[in-house]
């Protein structure tokens, strides 16, 4: 079964709409529709679902998220050591997936904040937006233009170029 969203993650503050005392003589048809829905659809479905959960609760079993050990990086591998390259490459790909998920989570946070605040989003979500900006800039710096065939080696070369640029900029600043 597909997973539901985690309702606890983005807590919406309780609504502050006041309870309205109805002064009209005609009863609200929405409440009638709600009771019909409750009896016709909601109750049977909930009953079946709870029956299924009772059957499944008889023998529970769990699954875990795998924790991988850290292996030497590509920069610590000797030349020609293809096994070291292979392990470093696998580790780099896992790290890249983790970074993609991090960016995705920060994006979702900004979206949730926007939805929550409504018309005040420009003012109240500034922190989340700033965080997203920093995170995307960092991701772009590290994995940015490597392309589809980017691997650990091209990423290392990009890092090397970045460090050279930084050193050149620092030198120019120091010589001013």
């Amino acid at each position, binding site marked *: 079964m597909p997973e539901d969203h985690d309702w606890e993650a983005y807590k919406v503050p309780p609504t502050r709409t006041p309870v309205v005392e109805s002064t009209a003589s005609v009863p609200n048809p929405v409440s009638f529709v709600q009771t019909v829905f409750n009896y016709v659809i909601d109750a049977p479905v909930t009953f079946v679902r709870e029956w299924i959960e009772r059957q499944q609760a008889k023998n529970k079993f*769990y699954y875990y*998220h795998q924790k991988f050990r850290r292996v030497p990086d590509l920069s610590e591998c000797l030349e020609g050591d293809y096994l070291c390259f292979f392990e470093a490459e696998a580790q780099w790909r896992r790290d890249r997936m983790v970074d993609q998920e991090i960016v995705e989570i920060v994006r979702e946070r900004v979206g949730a904040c926007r939805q929550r605040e409504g018309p005040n989003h420009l003012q109240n979500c500034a922190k989340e937006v700033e965080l997203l900006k920093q995170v995307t800039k960092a991701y772009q710096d590290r994995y940015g233009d490597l392309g589809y065939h980017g691997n650990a080696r091209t990423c290392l070369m990009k890092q090397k170029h970045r460090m050279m640029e930084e050193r050149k900029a620092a030198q120019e600043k120091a010589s001013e």
Partner: protein
Amino acid sequence: MAAMSRLLRAAAAWAARRAGGTGIAGNTGISGIAPRLPGTLVPVRHSSGHGKRMFIIKATSFYDTRFLNLLRFYVFLTGIPAALFITYVNIFIGEAELAEIPEGYVPEYWEYYKHPISRWIARYVLDPPEKDYEKQMALLDIEAKKTEMRLMELQARRLMRHRGDGPWYHYETPDKNLVDNSMKSTPDN
């Protein structure tokens, strides 16, 4: 209805006149073994309410229906048992729950999957990922050693060809004592 019968009667009269007119005064239309013209009226029984039975000429659908029947049969032959089995597993066994890895416990490699059928396949059908990893590393190692051997072989070939002091590129030449120099022994030949 009345108009139709009037039209049909008019058509019958016209056809009878065309056929030769022997039946106009006497009997009620074509009889016997005379050839029937198209459009002549013949006595027909209409089935009650459904109208005249027609032989509708259309292209055969025998092969199409046969194909679709066979397709349905063979798809459902394994599809229905598979669907029932998967429904049973999903309802009565259910998916695993996510939990934190307990202290000091190393989960088995199949305990990283959620659905019970995936867990079963990972446990009994596929190799553990550690073994897969080792197999990949072994292949890489073999290929790396092969590359190294080939490079060394090329290097040895090159050096032996240049220097000429090795067992390869050893071409046998005849002994210089066997060469006949008699035609060069006198200068005036």
